[in-house]
């Protein structure tokens, strides 16, 4: 307890002069406040009974893509007609395949994570 008090005094001393000294955000919670993330804000905003004409942050989300995603090689970015069944990486030609089979696991996993293809189902 003793150690925390001087730390607080320190902060008050450093406080810029233009600030209202007694003000503290979240007066209720003395503990370090946890700020609501955007997801929480959106979901609580959504749960309110808005009038029909209201436009919310969540209602202007872009639609999902209607076009089938093109397949590009994970290594080079070239159009990739093939997929390596072992690593699930896409590749464009046999030279790339030669590199793929030599790649260590962390690199292949990195490529998959970058493409967002880490789920087992996909």
């Amino acid at each position, binding site marked *: 307890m003793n150690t925390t008090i001087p730390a607080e005094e320190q902060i008050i001393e450093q406080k810029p002069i233009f600030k209202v000294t007694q003000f503290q955000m979240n007066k209720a919670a003395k503990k370090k406040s946890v700020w609501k993330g955007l997801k929480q804000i959106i979901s609580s905003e959504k749960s309110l009974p808005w009038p029909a004409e209201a436009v919310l942050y969540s209602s202007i989300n*872009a639609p999902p893509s209607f076009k089938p995603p093109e397949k590009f090689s994970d290594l080079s*970015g070239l159009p990739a007609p093939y997929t390596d069944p072992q690593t699930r990486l896409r590749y464009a030609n046999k030279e790339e395949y030669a590199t793929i089979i030599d790649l260590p696991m962390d690199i292949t996993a990195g490529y998959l994570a970058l493409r967002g293809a880490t789920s087992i189902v996909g």
Partner: protein
Amino acid sequence: MEVFHFKDAKIVPDIVHTYSGDIRANSVPLIYDNGSYVARVGWATSKEPLLMFKNLIAKPRKERSKKDNVEPAQAPQLQVGNDILNIEAVRFQLKTQFDRNIVTHFEAQEHLFDYAFTHLGIDSENRVNHPIVLTEAFLNPNTSRQLMTELLFECYDVPSITYGVDTLFAYHYCQSNPKSDALILSLGYQTCHIVPMLDNKVVFENIRRINTGGWNVVTFLHRILQLKYPAHATAITLSRAEELLHTICEVAEDYREELKKWFKTEYYENNIRKIQLPFSSISTNSALTLEQQKERKRELARRLTEINARKREERLAEDQEKLRQLLEIQEIIDFGAEKQEIENLLAEVQMKNLQELQKTVTNLNMRIERTRQKIIAASSAEDTEEPPVKQTKLSKMVFESDTAMHSFIDNVKKMRQEILTKKMLRKQRKQDIFKRRTAAGQERMRIISQLARKEKGNDDFGLRDEDWDIYKTISKDGGDSDSEAENEKLMEFEEILRNHEPEEFDSSANPGETHQLHVGIERFRAAELIFKPYMAGSSEAGLSEVIGYVLTLFSPDEQLRLAKNVIITGGLANLKGLKERILKDLISIRPFQSEVSVSVMKDCSLSPWYGMKQFARSEEYKKYIVTKKMYEEYGGEYFKTHLASNPYFVSPKETMVDVDT
């Protein structure tokens, strides 16, 4: 080919500006463009924003164990905005008040406000006596605005606040004569907005937001380069990826066509960019040239012969001295000395009788003669050049023609490569075997468990010699290890290659080359992410597709009005080729020969600030301010709508939900 060097632009700490009496006395409005990437702050009277800093704070973590010992004064300081001089050093402590494009973390926001107001030089006590014009995101949730208003009124006691959207400020107040209809594409750091506007009114319900922005592009580029060059992963930093994006990256007009071009080696050679990573050259032994190695050997040999010669001379002198002694004794004996005396003399040189003395004398004579001959031989050999270095049988070969030599060398290269791949595969398998989830590892565990299983009665393991081979396959080396013969062969091949093509083989000739990144397709691949968010795993549609979608929400007549004036703004708007790409995509989705026009707003990143300044200086500004009194009456989420603001919807009371359910 020019090699690109990183500038690694250093951040300059902000100065504390002077708080002039004019500004203080007239309560000049404070213009605050709170972007998710950079905040720009200045007075309505200043020409340019005085402060521009990244909206970041670096909060050092407290070390629990040392908590009691560390004096508060020595404790690491909180770094805010441009205080952060080396952003990569504190990358993991960085915090921003933004979650996507919405301010959610108001503690961080408070620190950033402190930073901005301090550096503007404000020194009025207990209040910041300036009306504030502040930006917010499109359709900023009321909760976020409420907290922002609360912070500004309660903590800084500002007289009034005006909220607006950065893109709209830029459009309405920064252009010379904005048209009343437009389709604004705002490409931000966290999000991209497609904003349709008809008769100067934004059609808010038809805005669409793509949650992919500059930040995603930078991290995408960062990650591809890291994966491409795992050895340099730490040298490829986010700031450097950002620098690359703004210097060498482009948007392809037609991505498919662009990719097709890259298949050709010629195009590849001409369009690849080489980027030099910083490196420190270490001169190791391998860096010594062959000539230097030879010289060193010769030096060693010379020193050795010198030592030998000195030893021989010493021995010669010693022997001569002893011979002289013995000859003296012999002389005395020959003159006929007394028997007692002879015995004494012999005892002195540790000999028993005359025969032994004579024998030693002849021995010594012979030895001296031999040493003398050796010395003569050595001195003559020193003059002659030492025999030439033994050459390997293969490197001595003489070829009939160049082609024969080339084919031979190619062959050697191939064999060398084969050995190298074999070695690498072996290493790989060795690593794999000890990882749990690899096929090799699982196979090994299967065999081991099979061996361990004991079946009573019919254990015939070992009857055949091949049975024992199983232990080879499960051994650490996974069957075979790098053999000595292979290593020798490899050395031999390398020797040959070094003799015939020294410049090609010696990678140490230009050590910087191993620290170069070759950025080819990545130049186009990075920015393509805005058009194809699925490249990074997002399910949202890309920019062009969403533009098409937004247009379908209007009548054909309105579509035409929008397509006539497409304006790009935001931090990414200046990417090379972006305008052409959007024009091309737009033409492809518009009816035949309908009018389409795309332009880029000038000063894309500063225009919101200029627009806000213009707004704050206009007559109408006073109508749109929210004073503290209004805040107290209507609550934190309240604000006045104007040309460049969001629409205001009062948050419904939550109690109504209970009635419904």
